């Protein structure tokens, strides 16, 4: 009796000690990633900024000035294109940043360089190593998404009507969408071998982005019913719609509860799948 209570006491003491060490190890991993990111901060900004910059420049600056019969010409449409695609571009930035921050490095660390060994031998559970990757990538995704907002304010010919009143919803959607992108990166990075990563980009990442309600709200798909239903299986749709609800609520968007439910669902599913893949790669 006495000895068993001693044992329990010892165990709880050990687990408190362990969680302290786990936390420090997790922090160490974050610091390492931060060091690498700060060293390459300018390339990072260019990488995440170039696409939305060019997109906004071409579609909301050049085309509207061309006038004549151009559907994107200033004052032509019922709503300016800039306002429609701002949330979409944020979603794309989140998505690509998540993949670049997790899938690409992980794929080469597993395959060619085996650098992952070093981090896998850290004194914390393996799932926490994967979680760190996802969290750090989420941080980059959030920076990438926020970077799009000033661009959308200064570049378009017609000012974008961003109206962020619900900051809580914005933060929640940003965090969930970024973690979701990181989890997708984890799935790709741990299941695809480095030689095929380019192919996966072309056949999965690009299609789900283009069909992710990035360039139009989901509600406008009414005329193409089958597509309207098919895209519900695409997690990017909820990222775009969620940001639409938070950043440009004047544009038609899904109800917030549906968006959040779907984001949580896809985050759980992809997170689980990615973690399984990760464990399968580091533990035999």
């Amino acid at each position, binding site marked *: 009796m006495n000895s068993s209570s001693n044992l329990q006491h010892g165990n709880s003491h050990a687990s408190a000690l362990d969680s302290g060490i786990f936390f420090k190890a997790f922090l160490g991993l974050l610091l390492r990633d931060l060091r690498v990111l700060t060293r390459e901060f300018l390339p990072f900004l260019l990488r995440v900024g170039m696409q939305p910059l060019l997109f906004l420049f071409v579609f909301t600056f050049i085309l509207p000035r061309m006038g004549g019969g151009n559907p994107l010409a200033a004052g032509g449409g019922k709503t300016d294109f800039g306002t429609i695609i701002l949330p979409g571009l944020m979603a794309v930035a989140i998505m690509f940043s998540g993949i670049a921050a997790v899938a690409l490095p992980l794929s080469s660390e597993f395959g060619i360089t085996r650098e992952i060994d*070093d981090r896998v031998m*850290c*004194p914390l559970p393996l799932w926490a190593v994967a979680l760190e990757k996802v969290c750090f990538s989420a941080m980059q995704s959030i920076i990438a998404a926020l970077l799009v907002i000033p661009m959308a304010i200064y570049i378009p010919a017609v000012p974008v009507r961003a109206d962020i009143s619900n900051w809580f919803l914005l933060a929640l959607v940003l965090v969930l969408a970024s973690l979701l992108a990181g989890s997708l990166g984890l799935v790709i990075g741990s299941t695809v071998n480095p030689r095929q990563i380019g192919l996966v980009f072309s056949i999965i990442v690009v299609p789900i982005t283009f069909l992710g309600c990035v360039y139009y709200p989901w509600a406008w798909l009414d005329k193409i019913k089958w597509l309207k239903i098919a895209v519900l299986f695409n997690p990017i749709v909820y990222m775009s719609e969620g940001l639409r609800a938070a950043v440009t609520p004047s544009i038609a968007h899904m109800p917030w509860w549906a968006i959040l439910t779907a984001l949580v669902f896809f985050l759980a599913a992809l997170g689980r799948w990615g973690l399984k893949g990760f464990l399968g790669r580091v533990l035999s």
Partner: protein
Amino acid sequence: MIVEIQHLTKIYESKLRVVAVDGIDLELEQGEIFGLLGPNGAGKTTTISIATTRTLPTSGTVRIAGVDVVRHPAHARRHIGVVPQFNTLDRSLTVYENLYYHCRYFGFSHGHARARSLELLEQFLLTERKDVYPAQLSGGLGQRVQIARAIAHRPTVLFLDEPSAGLDPQSRMAMWSAVEGLRKEGITVLLTTHYMEEADSLSDRVAIIDHGRVLALGTPEKLKQTYGAETVFDLKLKSREGLEAAVATLKARPDVRGAEATADGLRVMAVAQDGLLPDLVQEAARFGLRDLTIAEPSLETVFIHLTGRDLRE
């Protein structure tokens, strides 16, 4: 016992059933350097992978400093340092940062991690290269950084998997002296190798394993004695007249295992004994001794004796 491996098995069930480890029992004492010898595919790397929490055993247990590596892998890793077969240095960090962040992973504070990294750079003669990236290092230097990194968090056991594979002779010597140096720090070392010379000169004890089983275990000297490794005396002689009679006399000695006339003299295989050499020289003087070479017993002969000469894939 600092490392306890009990009844360890690992079976890979796929189309082809592979028994990689087939009931291995090993115990390592604090501070010893232990060599795990075996041909390719003998189960060395699998055993190390299990002990370092990277592979789950089919059955059996491994305890490092009393911690069960399967039940508490994260906890066990604090006692483990690993130098893997391949260069796994962090390519995005400098040599110094590789050490520094490794220390941070193991909970060191900034100041503590910094001091430990600088100390290791000095100990392993890497100070000049502290700001170099791993891709710019030669194989030998990379290996040195890996050893420094592996012991940075002061583990109780260091695992070295084929540490000298792909190193030039100078780097190998440097690596050996680095490992010898660890003895002073009281770190227990488990190394796998198929360089007999390496196992012989570095290890306090060795285990020869094949087909996932331990075939022999003991100090290199003991193994050589037990498995009949012989000292080979090669004598070059001017004259061969009456040599047959001398061979017969030698064969009759209890300490001589075999003797034969060769093209330019005489070869004698014997269990190492001090009395034999003067007698041999005296005997050979009659035939005009020109040269004498002595090959000490080696683990290689023991190894081949136990594992056979078949080529392994």
